[in-house]
């Protein structure tokens, strides 16, 4: 049985079912207990599982991730919430220095899933809107997941929690109550590292992940009327990422647009571009196009933020440009 669920509610269902499945899974973070988190994602879980498994912490991200590491070494399966992914900057040492390197150095598994809302377009400024995923993909030892649908959010969170490695689960805060789709009632998983083709097309591969997926689909619908077919690939997991699916699509289209909400310069798109250049050169018929945000801090003002972010028009222009090759 499946029914339509909001993105946020699908995440809560994954948390609930993972906690039912495994008594060592527990949640902690700022305001996650009675209040249910600032986005209401953990709402009601406190009533269901009690204060031991759903716990408020002091305002201390460094200590939160420190606890996650220690508890995981001892055998628990911690699922900390960082209120906004922007605040990971105050916990970089436990995350990057300890968590990411632990298994390689000490040989002990760290089954930790860090949930952190990410992304902008909500007019809440530089400190609540950043997309920092490239930093973490650049850090060996972390898996990075960025779901774009309710269905994926649930299945990928289940996989992340069951995974024996640290996973940074970057929830798209813009989608929490904007996106609703069919989600099975029972627990299921979606393997990490598998992309999905959102719409098929033969002219241009558009690679993206997270909330820009919807922008890409809009562009695909518009371009189709002009006879330009986009194949929209949603990566879902950006480390590890699905090279097979990308290569297969690119071997057909020979053209690619890479789209993300993060700053374009040295964003994750640069890694993807390098992948196409290094490993798919024989299929390339046109320049690799990247679309991302401007190289500035994120403005709060709507006019500036809209201009800061990659737009529908940017995709249309890039696609039309590529068709000249």
């Amino acid at each position, binding site marked *: 049985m499946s029914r339509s669920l909001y993105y946020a509610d699908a995440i809560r269902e994954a948390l609930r079912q993972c906690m039912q499945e495994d008594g060592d899974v527990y949640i902690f973070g*700022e305001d996650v207990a009675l209040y249910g988190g600032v986005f209401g994602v953990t709402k009601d879980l406190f009533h269901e599982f009690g204060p031991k498994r759903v716990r408020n912490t002091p305002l201390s991200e460094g200590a939160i991730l420190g606890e996650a590491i220690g508890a995981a070494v001892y055998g628990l399966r911690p699922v900390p919430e960082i209120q906004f992914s922007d*605040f990971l900057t*105050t916990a970089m040492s436990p995350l990057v220095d300890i968590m990411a390197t632990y298994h390689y150095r000490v040989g002990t598994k760290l089954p930790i899933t860090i949930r952190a809302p990410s992304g902008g377009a909500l*007019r*809440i400024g530089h*400190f*609540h809107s950043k997309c920092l995923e490239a930093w973490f993909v650049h850090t060996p030892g972390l898996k990075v997941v960025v779901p774009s649908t309710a269905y994926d959010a649930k299945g990928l969170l289940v996989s992340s929690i069951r995974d024996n490695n640290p996973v940074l689960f970057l929830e798209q805060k813009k989608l929490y109550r904007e996106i609703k789709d069919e989600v099975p009632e029972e627990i299921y998983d979606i393997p990490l590292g598998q992309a999905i083709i959102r719409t098929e097309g033969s002219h241009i591969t558009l690679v993206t992940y997270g909330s820009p997926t919807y922008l890409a689909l809009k562009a695909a619908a518009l371009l189709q009327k002009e006879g330009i077919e986009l194949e929209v690939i949603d990566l879902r997991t950006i480390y590890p990422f699905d090279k097979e699916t990308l290569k297969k699509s690119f071997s057909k289209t020979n053209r690619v647009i890479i789209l993300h909400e993060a700053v374009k310069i040295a964003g994750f798109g640069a890694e993807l571009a390098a992948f196409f250049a290094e490993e798919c050169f024989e299929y390339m018929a046109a320049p690799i196009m990247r679309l991302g945000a401007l190289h500035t801090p994120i403005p*709060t003002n709507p006019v*500036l933020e809209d201009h800061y972010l990659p737009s529908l028009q940017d995709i249309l222009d890039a696609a039309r440009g590529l068709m000249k090759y």
Partner: protein
Amino acid sequence: MEQLTKKQHLELYRYLRLTRALEDWIFYICANQNPQKPLIIGKGYLSTGQEATSIGAAYALEKEDWIAQSHRDFGALLIRGLTPRELLLQYFSKETGPTKGRDANVHLGHTGKHVLGFISHMGAMVPVANGVAFAMKYKKKKACILAFFGDGASSQGIVHEAMNYAAVFKLPVVFICNNNRWAISTPLEEQMAIKNVADRGASYGMPGVICDGNKVEEVYQTVLKAVRLAKKGGGPTLVECKTMRMSGHGTHDRAKYVSDQEIASWKKKDPIMHHEKLLKKLGYADEAYFKKIIAEVKSEVEEATQWAKNQADPSIQNQLEDVFARS
């Protein structure tokens, strides 16, 4: 202890009333604006009911001093010379505002008025205040800086680092913890295992003092003593102002997690009511005077709104400028 003059008492009253009026107005706009075409970008973060902490502390400063304000310090910002017009430009995200319309609400700074640029990361500006304090010493200036942070922010490692650091170098900083009992939905009891943040002073090697954060004259006297010590080279002090967050975390938050009793008991300790009583007792003012000030600040805020509303919005033309200084 030095007594406040009548003029000072009345000036403090005006700041209390102006801050209240400005923030009531911000609350009103947030509640009534068209979400499709908002005047205020984002939410309001208000100090309503705890204004005395920010105002009493900043009032102890002189012109050459600085502040590293937190997100409920409009009182201190007004004292530092930011005007209601400027603060509304910031809330309306206008091009001529303190952050050129790039940032909004409480995320601002003003170097000319000796106000550091606040960021959201709680407590992050506390070590930056140390830097200003160090530079004051370096330049042999008899000045100091107030570093404001909340009870929640006090749990950030960097705040502890900064206090230890300031004590080691005897920096002219006064740490002001506005302990308003809540950090979003998290009550004090879940934030720390101690009763008083001020108790931590001893562990860093600096005085830790407590004052009633709702009594503006008491905050002033307490901070003034710490400011004088700092300027004499006596190093930092940790001042804890006990108060209460009387509204939601932001204008979007109805704060259902706070009990009605807690609010009711603190209502009786409202800082403006307290100050009015004091002014009457001292024979400095009467009801008619209060009415006059209330009307004055109300029209000041309304005038500022009308003016700020009509200022230019930022444009995308110069959006890429200023990431780096040009010279």
